[in-house]
């Protein structure tokens, strides 16, 4: 159950490795939804990174999609919308190579959802089921809500993997600070782009300048930095 039990990410401190936390985030989906396995990835300043998988098949499915550059994962990233393939046997031809490889792994159904933070897609949750079958409307709603509540934690985890000590400064996770969301909106308007693109530009700028996203966001909100003036 979601409400009871310890809040997720509560033990991100010393002992638990990042990988374990990532796996725990994935297992939550397996516990609460009729799926066999789950993997999760985040788009950061340096590109995408997998933050966890609940089992070897999920990990392999994610790996295959990264290697092949095709699959529901990429579809979610480009559209920001869920992909629900409830019978892979019937639907695998839309991803010729990945589809065939997934069938070989005895995958019956694939469901991929965006991890969203407001208007920004920050990553993807890839789920599979060993037997075909639809996710009902209620389960889709639950899955989307789980994805939304996981986005911030997953993003923080990915940032932590990239630069371990940059994080645990203070109670407030950087992605929760209002300035980051406000700056995303400002950059969106400055570049005439999407929220997702604006947020990755913020992250990439922070990464390449060795600054935190929070710091860069503050510069943008204070109007000391405009992405309008930056060349690609």
């Amino acid at each position, binding site marked *: 159950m979601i409400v009871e039990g310890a809040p997720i990410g509560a033990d991100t401190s010393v002992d638990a490795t990042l990988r374990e936390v990532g796996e725990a985030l994935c297992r939550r989906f397996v516990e609460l939804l009729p799926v066999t396995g789950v993997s999760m990835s985040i788009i950061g300043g340096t590109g995408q990174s997998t933050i966890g998988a609940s089992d070897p098949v999920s990990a392999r499915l994610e790996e295959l999609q990264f290697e092949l550059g095709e699959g529901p994962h990429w579809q979610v990233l480009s559209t920001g919308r869920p992909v629900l393939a409830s019978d892979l046997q019937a639907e695998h031809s839309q991803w010729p190579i990945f589809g065939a490889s997934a069938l070989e792994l005895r995958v019956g159904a694939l469901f991929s959802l965006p991890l969203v933070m407001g208007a920004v897609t920050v990553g993807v949750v890839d789920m599979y089921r060993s037997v075909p079958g639809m996710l009902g409307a209620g389960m889709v709603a639950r899955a989307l809500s789980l994805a939304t509540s996981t986005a911030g934690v997953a993003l923080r985890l990915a940032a932590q993997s990239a630069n371990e000590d940059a994080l645990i400064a203070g109670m407030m996770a950087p992605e929760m600070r209002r300035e980051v969301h*406000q700056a995303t909106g400002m950059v969106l308007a400055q570049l005439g782009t999407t*929220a997702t693109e604006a947020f990755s530009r913020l992250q990439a700028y922070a990464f390449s300048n060795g600054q935190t996203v929070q710091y860069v966001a503050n510069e943008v909100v204070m109007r000391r930095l405009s992405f309008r003036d930056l060349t690609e």
Partner: protein
Amino acid sequence: MNEVAREVRLNAAFVKLADTLVADYDVIDLLHTLMEECIGLFDIQAGGLMLANTLGTLELVASTSERADFVEVMQLAAGAGPCIDCFSTGKAVAVADIEATATKWPEFRDAALKQGFHSVHATPLRLREQTIGTMNLFGTRSEALSPTDADAAQALADVATIGILQERLIRESDIVTEQLQHALDSRILIEQAKGVLSETGSMDMDEAFTALRSYARSHNLSLRTVAEGITSRSLDVFGTDTVRSTTTK
């Protein structure tokens, strides 16, 4: 305010809040309305309502001011201060004199005093044994809320809880998190939309929020819907207004 006038006003506040609970209401707008009502009802000068996210961290979802320095005070209060104490104990925390708290919450104390706040009253948003957030009222005088006022604040907080969770859905325990998450994510979307408006309209974040809210109200749309339109650039708040003012000439 005398007792009778106050009673009338308190009742009016409940009715106003109850109205917003009908059908397709806007939860963020409801919470803003609630905070604004508190300023009239109690001897306080500012207020903020915080909800817990998946991590159990409190996030500000509605406040009487969107100004960065006030938001900062709220965030400090949620890190080490009266809000987090109220949230973790599930009990109201009354601080009649913030200055007298000395070293208990030094960062919160300094920031609050700098903003001219001398008292704070944090009321839990409770659903049965679970606390989902806190409603925090700040005063510029060092004086506690009267017991009657504290009770009224709790009653308003209870209405807010129902508003957030929608009574008819709370029997399903996992829905609680979904409703909360929806409110928290709406807030993120609103911040992103404020950024867009601030950039395109050359205004500060406070003005951007006011512009967003007035547009939502005058077009009978939810704050979330307007924010979605702004961030996907399918809605031009300023453009539409220009068109309207020229056509009505």
